[in-house]
């Protein structure tokens, strides 16, 4: 495990044009400090893989407001007028994915599976141009894995091995996204000594985590 870095150090690792998995559900469970550092960095053309666009000042909103994002892959954008405006202006590409398919595609990428066979989306716009595979007489949509160059994870606790715990509904996409980033950066609320997190309480083993962000001053 590497020593803890600052949010600015973490943001500096992410180049223009990178794809980034970003956790959170309406801003809950989003790594806010690294999001703000990244928004301040002036990064451009990011592909953001995140459940929802939250609101302009919430969750990943600041990244969209700062025009860092070229492509958004997620399930909900209804409460962020910036996204709607940039989408209409043609400067932001939006790929809407059903939420259950979204998270399962990320898991498939992280777990070395070839994709997801889901009934969700069959017979709707979502199925357009996709393969339908029949298994035991039932049709399923084949959805490909969804991976990224980086995964930015919000955790409750972390030790210096990188083991992570999450808290209540701030868990959401975090443990799944931690599987599927080529580089995984965790922003915990606290860092505790090694051995202080009971093995059964760990939700993301440290072997998956590449960098840990220092606690807020």
């Amino acid at each position, binding site marked *: 495990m590497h020593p803890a870095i600052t949010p600015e150090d973490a943001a500096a690792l992410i180049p223009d044009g990178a794809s980034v998995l970003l956790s959170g559900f309406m801003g809950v469970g989003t790594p806010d400090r690294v999001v703000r550092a990244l928004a301040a960095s002036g990064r451009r053309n990011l592909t953001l893989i995140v459940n929802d666009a939250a609101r302009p000042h919430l969750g990943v909103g600041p990244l969209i407001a700062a025009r860092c994002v070229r492509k958004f892959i997620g399930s909900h954008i209804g409460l962020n007028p910036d996204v709607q405006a940039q989408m209409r202006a043609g400067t932001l590409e939006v790929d809407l994915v059903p*939420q259950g398919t979204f998270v399962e595609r990320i898991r498939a990428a992280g777990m070395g599976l070839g994709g997801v066979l889901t009934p969700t*989306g069959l017979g709707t*716009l979502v199925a357009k141009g996709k393969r339908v595979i029949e298994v035991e007489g039932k049709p399923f949509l084949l959805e490909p894995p969804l991976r990224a160059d980086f995964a930015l994870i919000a955790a409750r606790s972390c030790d210096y091995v990188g083991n992570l715990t999450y808290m209540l509904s701030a868990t959401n996409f975090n443990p799944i996204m931690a599987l599927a980033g080529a580089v995984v950066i965790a922003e915990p609320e606290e860092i505790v000594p090694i051995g202080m997190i009971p093995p059964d309480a760990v939700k993301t083993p440290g072997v998956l985590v590449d960098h840990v962000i220092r606690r807020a001053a």
Partner: protein
Amino acid sequence: MRPDPHLMTPKDLIARRVAQEIRPGTLVNLGIGIPTRVSDHLPEGMGVFFQWENGVVGLGHRPPEGMGDRHLTDAGGSCVSAVPGASIIDSAFSFGLIRGGHLDLTVLGGLQVDARGRLANWMIPGEYVPGMGGAMDLVTGAKRVIVAMLHCVHGQSKIVPECTLPLTSPRRVDLIVTELAVIAPREDGLHLLETAPDVSLAEVLAATAAPLLVAGEVPEMDLR
């Protein structure tokens, strides 16, 4: 005390009627909007667990002012509480429950439902594109789907012969509850089961663009 249905708002009337559909000891998902109000009308002690897509199984009421925590929220990001016996699951697990047939009931809002009982509730092309969130998985996977919505919008019926908006799923929903009527989509069409208090059959028929099947006397909603 039994509330007077004549004094209830249309949305509360819908929520109250939907609440009667909830069976003891089941797992229920309530969508945003009118569906969220359903839990307010449910008697205590039924052992019902409410789940949100965000991973809370056993959602409680809104906590008292100043006692919320940003780590325990509903799908809109507002602070909630949890009931005794609540549990937390990640998003993959949450949708596994939904898609895997473990969810007994979902109650969702709607933009349109058509004569085949198909729901559209996630976008108005060229106008409003919020995204489907978890709605497609919910309609695909829940054992029972109830649409809770106002009967009309801008004077136009939301119950239409054929959806003109993109479908959420081709699955036929199980029940439609509006402030005017309770309607059950079945193989042969939309069956009118109940009318709201003080609403005549003629009013329901006039407010509904899709054909309704009426068998004999239509009873009034019992909002006990």
